[in-house]
Each structure stands twice: as structure tokens, then as C-alpha cells.
């Protein structure tokens, strides 16, 4: 038999109809995650067409994008924005009408869609998972083929549990070596995106491998897979191993008993065959990495934190030069400048990239006994209500509050700035989120993407700081 990659294996296992020249493959979807922003028009389409949801039992909805993260009063979240309120109510109506389980604002399991899937044990190796959200690649950390879709495709999956897909190409990203102190999964993925480029992985699925990846915990692996889309990839994944199985075991929707044993047997066969070939390969040395930070207006514009802003005149092409020029103008930066010491207004710890308990622990470790610098606003937004409870049980909320940070309710918050949590024009933020596009965190706002460690070090310094040299 021809050696296969993990993607080949998952692909073959989900073919309802193989692809031909005239027609893409019909691919079965094991799990469909739904949220309030990209689903209303899909449900409306089902109504227009008189279609039903084929498999509500393989569908789960949550509220995250337009939800407020302001403190609850008497246990309830108040949604003051009338448009957001309408959108959230619409999701409730849709889920009720079509029989879909919803983790609503009053559900203790509510949270960011890419945090709750893994947390509940719904995300499992070998599955196909889709969601109307480009960061669905997060679930690839478990060895699932997970990718973002648009609203039309949301309606197709609701109605048929399948999608028409052309098989993506395989790209191996191998990272060997041991990370230095202060260097994290976020720095690995920012370095990868800087290397591959903003569109460098278009049409491909990234498979992350190597000793540095194997050494990472599941939450760190999620951080890496989460940002695959920022290099243009359709998905990113990591073959499952003992670390994966240990994380899944015992979670609410995980298999148990004899089903568990059967599942692990299946999962153990998923890894790419030794002699499987890739359409493309890149390699990175983990030991050579420093903490990374973005300087520009897309996630590939990143440098080591002690590096210098590149000079657009040295760019490879006229278009690249124009792109860099525009980015530096927007960010109010000069070529050759160091980012260290640049004042910031806001620090945001959160998002589907870095809002899990290990992220909050890392940030808290830096904050403990220190204080947010005067004039800086720091928001800490846990990825789910479960993460929030866990953090509070460990006293992390006290650490953040005593340091002068805001401790918020779960949601996407300032990553996408749809819910009122946003930068003012001209403000700068160091953010643990995934996108630094113009205005992403609020019209006219400037975003520097970095790890939770760098974010916390920056918050206590009041300016972009290197956690390795924090006094």
C-alpha cells in the first residue's frame, strides 16, 4: 500500500464519494461547531429551502464572538448592544427550532468555540471538524482534519453533514530541538508564519512534527495549529500521541470503557507513515528561536523581540515594499527601529490562540507580585467559563486583579472587537490573539501579537518588554 500521511488517512476515511475531474469529493463531517456570527444566514437558507438539519447530534453551538465579557450581575450577562442581542437571540431560536444543543450565556460550559470543543472532549483524533470560523484549525492539535468554512457551507453541512472538497496538498513543518527559557508555542508559530509567509501555505494542510512539537502539551499544540490559517493554510494538524490521549481521557464527551480502548487503537494508527511524502517541507530549529512579536499589519510581519523593524527598501519586490511601507505607516514605526521600550496603551490576554489555563498561568506567573504600569489597561479574558472557574480555583483571578488587570467573562473579546472590547483610534496593544490586521482590535488601533509571557512582561513594564530580561 502507498505510504500515507495523516491527512491522507483521515481523507480516505471520510469519503462519501471520491473526487473526479468534474466533481470534488463529498466529504463527511464528524463534528460541526456553530456560533452566532456566521450561522444566522445559514439557518435562514434552510428555512427558505425547506431543509432540515441532518445530524443535530453531530452539531454543537456556542456564543462567543459578539458576547459581552463585562462582569455578570446576579449570575447573568447583560447584552446591551441591540444588534448583538438580536444575533444571540437568533441563535437561541435557531437551535431550538432545529434541535441543536447550545451552550448559551447561562450555560456553565459556554466559551470560545475552539476552546470548548477540546475542553468537552468533543475534539478527537481522526475526525473531520468544521466551523464557520477560520481558526477551526485549532482542533488539528488532536490529529483531526479541522478547517473553517463560510456561511453557505455552514448551511450545506447543516443540511447534508457533508461538504464538497478538493484534496489539499500536504506540507510538513518540522521543528526539532529544545526551546529556550521564555520562548513558547506562540513564538514557534509566529516564527513559522514569518518563514512561510502570509499566503505561503494557501491550498495546503500543515502537519507539524519534530521533537519540539512532541514536547508540547495539548494547549500549546492548539496555539500552534490555531494560527495555521495565518500562513494561508486550510488546516494544520499534529499526529496524536500519549499526550493527546491523556488530555482527552475522562472529558465529558470522550469515549469510555471498551469504546475508549477501541478509539485509542484507531488513533494510534493515524500518524503519517514513515515513508509518506509531502508536497513541501520546511524545518525550524527550536533552540534558535527567541520570543517573537509582530511589527506590521499581518501575522507574517514578525521579528524576534530584540530584533529590528525591517527596511522596506530591502524588500524582494515592489509589491512587498509597498505592503511593508503601508504597514509601517499604519503602525507608526520606522525601519531599523527596535520595538523594545515602545509604549503601549492596552495589553490583551485572551482569544482562541491563548486563553486556556496554561496561558493564564504563564501570564500570572509574570504578574505575581508586580503591578500593571500606570496608564496601561490590561484585560485578561478566559477562553471559557470552565477556564475561568479553574483559574479562580487556583487564585489566578486574584493575581490579575491585585496587579491591576481586568478579569473578564469568557469570549472572543478584543481579538475581534465586536462586543465593545476594543482599542481607540491610535492606541497600541500587545495582544496574545491571532490577527494584527488594520483595525482588527478597533478602528485605528495598532496591534502587536505576542505570547502571554511577553504580554504580561509588557503590561508590568508599560512598554514592549522582553520577558527574559524582566527585572
Amino acid at each position, binding site marked *: 500500500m502507498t505510504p500515507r500521511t495523516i491527512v491522507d488517512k483521515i481523507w480516505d*476515511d471520510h469519503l462519501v464519494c471520491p473526487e473526479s475531474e468534474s466533481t470534488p469529493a463529498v466529504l463527511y463531517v464528524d463534528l460541526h461547531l456553530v456560533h452566532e456570527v456566521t450561522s444566522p444566514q445559514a439557518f435562514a437558507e434552510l428555512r427558505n429551502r425547506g431543509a432540515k438539519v441532518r445530524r443535530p447530534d*453531530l452539531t454543537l453551538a456556542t456564543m462567543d464572538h459578539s458576547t459581552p465579557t463585562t462582569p455578570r450581575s446576579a449570575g447573568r450577562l447583560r447584552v446591551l448592544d441591540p444588534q448583538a442581542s438580536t444575533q444571540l437571540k437568533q441563535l437561541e431560536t435557531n437551535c431550538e427550532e432545529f434541535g441543536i444543543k447550545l451552550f448559551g450565556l447561562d450555560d456553565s460550559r459556554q466559551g470560545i468555540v475552539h476552546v470548548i470543543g477540546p475542553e468537552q472532549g468533543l475534539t478527537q483524533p481522526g475526525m473531520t471538524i468544521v466551523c464557520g470560523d477560520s481558526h477551526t484549525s485549532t482542533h488539528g492539535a488532536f490529529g483531526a482534519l479541522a478547517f473553517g468554512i463560510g456561511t*453557505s457551507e455552514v448551511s450545506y453541512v447543516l443540511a447534508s453533514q457533508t461538504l464538497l472538497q478538493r484534496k489539499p496538498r500536504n506540507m510538513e513543518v518540522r521543528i526539532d530541538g529544545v526551546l529556550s527559557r521564555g520562548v513558547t508555542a506562540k513564538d514557534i508559530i509566529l516564527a513559522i508564519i514569518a518563514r512561510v509567509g502570509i499566503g505561503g501555505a494557501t491550498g495546503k494542510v500543515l502537519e507539524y512534527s519534530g521533537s519540539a512539537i512532541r514536547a508540547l502539551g495539548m494547549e500549546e499544540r492548539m496555539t500552534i495549529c490555531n494560527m495555521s490559517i495565518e500562513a494561508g493554510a486550510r488546516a494544520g494538524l499534529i499526529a496524536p500521541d500519549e499526550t493527546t490521549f491523556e488530555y482527552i481521557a475522562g472529558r465529558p464527551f470522550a469515549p469510555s470503557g471498551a469504546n475508549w480502548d477501541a478509539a485509542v487503537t484507531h488513533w494510534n494508527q493515524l500518524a503519517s507513515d514513515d515513508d509518506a511524502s509531502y508536497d513541501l517541507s520546511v524545518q525550524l530549529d527550536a533552540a534558535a528561536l527567541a520570543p517573537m512579536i509582530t511589527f506590521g499589519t499581518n501575522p507574517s510581519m514578525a521579528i524576534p523581540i530584540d530584533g529590528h523593524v525591517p527596511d522596506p527598501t530591502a524588500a524582494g519586490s515592489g509589491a512587498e515594499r509597498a505592503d511593508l511601507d503601508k504597514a509601517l505607516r499604519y503602525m507608526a514605526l520606522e525601519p531599523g527601529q527596535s520595538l523594545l521600550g515602545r509604549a503601549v496603551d492596552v495589553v490583551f490576554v485572551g482569544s482562541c490562540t491563548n486563553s486556556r489555563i496554561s496561558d493564564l498561568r504563564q501570564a500570572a506567573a509574570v504578574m505575581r507580585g508586580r503591578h500593571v504600569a500606570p496608564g496601561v489597561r490590561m484585560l485578561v479574558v478566559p477562553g471559557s467559563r470552565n477556564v475561568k472557574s479553574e483559574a479562580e480555583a487556583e487564585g489566578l483571578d486574584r493575581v490579575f486583579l491585585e496587579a491591576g488587570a481586568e478579569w473578564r467573562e469568557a469570549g472572543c473579546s478584543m481579538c475581534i472587537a465586536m462586543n465593545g472590547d476594543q482599542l481607540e483610534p491610535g492606541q497600541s496593544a500587545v495582544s496574545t490573539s491571532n490577527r494584527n490586521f*488594520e483595525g482588527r482590535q478597533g478602528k485605528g488601533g495598532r496591534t502587536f501579537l505576542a505570547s502571554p509571557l511577553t504580554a504580561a512582561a509588557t503590561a508590568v513594564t508599560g512598554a514592549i518588554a522582553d520577558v527574559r530580561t524582566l527585572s
Partner: protein
Amino acid sequence: MKEKTIEPFITLTSSCVVLPAENVDTDQIIPARFLKTIERRGLGAHLFADWRVDEHGQPRTEFPLNSPAAVGAAILVAGHNFGCGSSREHAPWALLDFGFRAVISTGFADIFRNNALKTGLLPVALSKPAHASLLNQLAVSPRSSVTIDLETQRATLPDGTSHAFAVDPFARHCLLNGVDELGFLIGQDAAIAAYESTHSSRVCTR
């Protein structure tokens, strides 16, 4: 079940708006604050909102979509990797609602291209030399027209040269006939049921 009809795309001859920047992301095409709508229509008013309108709510005259030449143009000529970033289908909805039927570039982000094809907005990826030539021609005569023929998969530039472009055959079929993929997928019911009978569910969300 009702067959949905999307606006068929067969041929289009139109003037163009040129937005040469590379890596234009969907947050620029339609900023996230406009995604709280539960409708598909009406997003054209906010297309490129932060590039079109300044902080005082006034149109930025230097922005190509605000130029007199943009009036009536149904083709957007953009730079490489157009539509990168988020999966929001609101991006092609906004472009369509504004009046565009096609975007010409040298390459598109995956999800944007998928979404565009499903909503009736044709992404046309030309070779780098053809794209560069088109930009030059439009710089000289901004109001000149381009013809896009989906049947033959060719784009004819103002200078009369004709260039092939690739489109997935299935997406092309849907666009030419004004049907979406849902009817086809629902039509696969027997095959889907057969798959389900031999593959047990991995999870149950109930």
C-alpha cells in the same frame, strides 16, 4: 426541496476598479463590527469601510472605490492573496452588494475563493504578467473594459489580448447554471446514508 438560484455568471464586460495592494484581508473588506447583522444584504454600504471613509465620516477621495471611474464598475482588480484572514462570507456579500461580480488577482485566499464562488462572485486568477499588463493598461485608460467569459474561461483585457483562467469545473457548472451546491449534496442522500450505516458517529453532542 426548492432549488436555490444564484445569479448566473456567464459573461461580464465591465470597467474596473483597481486596488493593487497585496494581502488585502477580510477585516478590511468588511470590518468585524458590521458582522452583527443577521442579513446577507446591505453590507455594500460598509465595504472597505475604514479605507473608504475617514475618521470624520467623510469619503477619502484618494481611495479607488471613491473615484468617479468606479461608478458602475463590476470588476475589482486586486493584488495577490486577496481575501486572506477570516472565513466571513460577509466579504463576498459586501462586494456583491456594492455591485461587483468578479475580482481579478493573481491569487486568492482559500476560504475567500470558496465563499465567493458559492455566492456568485467570480474570482479570476490571472498569471503575473497578464495581471501586470492589465494594471498598466488601466493606469493609462482607467475607464476601459475587461470581458470575463466563464464558458471559455478567458479574460479579454482592454488591449484585446485574451488570457485563460482556471475555475473548478463544478463551481463553474454551478455559476453558469445559477444553482448552488446544496441541491447536489442533498441529492447524495443515498450515498450519505450508506456512509452513515458503515461508519459509526465519533461523538454525540446530545
